[in-house]
């Protein structure tokens, strides 16, 4: 009945807050600011408008409206922004959160129930935030005799590995990718190879039977489906002759590869489900056999981190499917429907006195134009689209396709039961590997018949 703790005193509470604030301030002053300065000493600072951006300049410019846009632009084109926000972690986490919401509501609709409903007034849109708050405020219980360092590290490493996977995904044209690698596809395989290790280590470290069985199952499953996963993408590599994911997307500007390689797409989709441990392949977490599999001993926020990691992984796999088989960001470019005045003259932004100090050219989206001259070139008719327009429409297409693929990843959860380990291995080793070789031979045939490739018909 009691919401407030019985020994609650307002004075103690305030004192606690002041104490904490004092100590935080002290520590920041004594340790934080020197640390930031040491880091800044080693970082290469960007040059904006011919001036090296120092911390002092940054703080000064922050309040100067004319310099804010270049400042933000410089921030957007820094590596930090890519890693933290747009093609990197923030974007992926946003889509992952959306995935969780869509999954719950869609599954509820399929099962003729309501789903999350009350949290956030509108169809339970804040349920995820509520769940996060709940998870973070729960006690973390470490099983006795567990291998503590490994056990603590496993969820963090899981999220980290999933994020490393996300780093390889190109989202939009013009190099909007955290790490643009020549061997991107191989890097994907290398990163995927880390998941079974983390799984089995966390399972082993818990010193409990059910996680151990679940971890061994997860190992078998991931390991067995890695080979069809690798082989099913070989067809596309044969046809494009590159391992760079951005180049693979650009090779699909006229048609997506799924037209020629439906078998490869089906095999890749199936292996994707297995690697993601989603129903019908969720054997490592089969709750009616081994309580929650390798997640049994995780509690509180550790479990939340593992879930976050798995949904990041889900986004990354869906994006990989889109990139390789559905043409990534390719699609008709949207022209923002604005008045010609705005297009030609831009939107003036006045300062406090009413004098126009800055003009924002809306369709070119100057914030996102890498080259400021693109707008001029486009006005002269030498450039069809600025990179900002390409970025916006590319991201929209990419997100639309990814959400479609995610929908099909989520749908089996409502339709299929879980299968058994020996059936799973049988499917992986017999059927999928055979099918992926069929796919490779189709690709070879396409090349050697002269349909695709150098001097081909298409």
């Amino acid at each position, binding site marked *: 009945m009691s919401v407030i703790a019985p020994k609650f005193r307002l004075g103690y509470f305030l004192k606690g807050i002041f104490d904490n604030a004092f100590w935080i301030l002290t520590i920041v002053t004594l340790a934080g600011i020197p640390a930031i300065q040491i880091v800044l000493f080693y970082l290469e600072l960007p040059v904006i408008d011919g001036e090296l951006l120092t911390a002092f300049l940054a703080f000064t410019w922050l309040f100067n409206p004319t310099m804010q846009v270049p400042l933000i632009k410089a921030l957007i084109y820094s590596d930090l922004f890519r890693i933290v926000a747009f093609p990197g972690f923030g974007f992926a986490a946003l889509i992952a959160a959306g995935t969780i919401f869509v999954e719950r509501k869609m599954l509820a609709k399929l*099962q003729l129930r309501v789903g999350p409903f009350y949290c956030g007034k509108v169809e339970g849109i804040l349920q995820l935030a509520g769940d996060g708050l709940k998870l973070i405020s729960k006690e973390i219980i470490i099983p006795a005799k567990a291998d503590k360092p490994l056990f603590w590290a496993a969820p963090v490493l899981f999220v980290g590995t999933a994020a490393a996977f996300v780093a390889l995904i190109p989202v939009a044209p013009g190099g909007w990718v955290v790490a643009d690698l020549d061997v991107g596809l191989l890097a994907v395989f290398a990163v995927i190879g880390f998941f079974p290790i983390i799984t089995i280590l966390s399972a082993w470290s818990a010193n409990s*039977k059910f996680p151990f069985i679940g971890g061994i199952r997860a190992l078998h499953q991931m390991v067995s489906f890695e080979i069809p996963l690798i082989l099913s993408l070989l067809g596309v590599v044969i046809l494009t002759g590159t391992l760079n994911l951005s180049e693979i997307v650009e090779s699909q500007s006229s048609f997506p590869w799924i037209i020629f390689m439906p078998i490869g797409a089906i095999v890749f989709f199936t292996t994707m489900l297995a690697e993601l441990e989603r*129903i019908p392949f969720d054997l490592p977490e089969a*709750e*009616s056999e081994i309580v929650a599999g390798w997640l049994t001993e995780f509690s509180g926020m550790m479990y939340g981190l593992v879930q976050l990691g798995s949904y990041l992984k889900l986004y990354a796999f869906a994006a990989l499917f889109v990139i390789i088989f559905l043409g990534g960001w390719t699609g008709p470019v949207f022209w923002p429907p604005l008045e010609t005045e705005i297009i030609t003259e831009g939107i003036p932004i006045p300062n406090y006195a009413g004098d126009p100090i800055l003009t924002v050219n809306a369709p070119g989206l100057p914030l996102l134009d890498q080259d400021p001259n693109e707008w001029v070139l486009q006005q002269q008719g030498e450039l069809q689209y600025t990179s900002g327009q390409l970025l916006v429409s590319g991201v929209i297409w990419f997100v639309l396709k990814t959400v479609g693929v995610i929908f099909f990843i989520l749908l089996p959860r409502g339709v299929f039961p879980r299968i058994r*380990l020996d059936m799973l291995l049988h499917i992986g080793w017999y059927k999928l590997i055979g099918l992926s070789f069929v796919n490779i031979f189709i690709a070879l045939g396409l090349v050697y018949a002269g349909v695709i490739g150098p001097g081909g018909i298409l």
Partner: protein
Amino acid sequence: MAEQVIPTKKMPPGLQVENVDDRIMTLNVGPQHPGSGHMRIIVKIDGDYIVDADPDPGYVHRGEEKMAESRNYITNIPHLERPVIHDSCNILYPYVLGVEDLVGIEVPERAKYVRVIAAELNRCIYIQYWLAIYGIFLGHSTMFMWPAGDRELLIDLMEKITGARVTHAYFIPGGVRNDVPANFEDVCLRQVNYFEKRIKEYADIFYDNPILKARTEDTGVLSREDAIRLGTTGSVLRASGVDYDLRIKEPYDVYDELDVHTNVLKSGDSYARSKIPWLDMLESCNIIRQALEKMPKSGSIRTKLKPNPKGREDEVYRRVESGRGSAGCHIISRGKPEPYRLKLSVSSFRNLIALPYLLKGEKLGNMPAVYWSLNYWPVEADR
């Protein structure tokens, strides 16, 4: 003589216990396990195979039989339905029939029909609940939600009849406690028809699902001979090809006036055992419609009983076909208002014996499918 009778099952050759001594892991599946119900199964596994399984029921034992010895025939009614609250009419049925025999009381015709309707509705309610859990045991969450939701249609009907959603305490020696409400026939017909339409939709997503078939077919096969030897009953027995349904073989109340069909499958695997209850539900809908049609439109519903009825000095053994199989009630009376000894011979307890037999040599992944396909209700087995 012993060797030829006791069923033995061939194990894969690598799984003899003496060979794999140090590789065996003992798992306690239950009582706090999402795949066990209120029971513990001590499972010894070697890798992916179960080499030994030992069911350990009793976590919800409440001594109904002992408690019944100190309560009179009427006040026993709310207690005896407790073991299977989802199937409370059917678990009360043999007791009520037995007490009627002992006390010597006739049941009005209309009450018999109402009893049949209530019992069949309850059977469907139970099977829906069972099916929901079977779905979630196989990881099929839609098959958990759909039966649990559609069950509401019938619970609503039972609530209209008896005034309670579960634990109806509706049957009483001499009839039923109250008459059905006005225009009940129309509502019942409408909801039962919709219910039948709904459960036919389970076929596409569940029973004809190739993954489910591949998963449960040929797992936990119980042959006809073994099913008889092990004394199994109900859906387990009928899935193994034995045509034995007490509604036909030993008709009670008005089942002999209705056109009752029984469903028998030959294969005896988990899939057949899970399909029989579904077919039973379709059959129950037929029976309810027939009973609604043939039911006398008016008439007495309950023969008045003396306040504290005393049974004859005799013993009776009555049995009915409940949602899980034969439910028997053995009452020994000594001429007192209380039974001297009351024994519930319930089908869950009888089917439990097949569990270790079926699990041996099976894969661990098959354990929930085999276990729940036995139509086992832990509380009923424990009583």
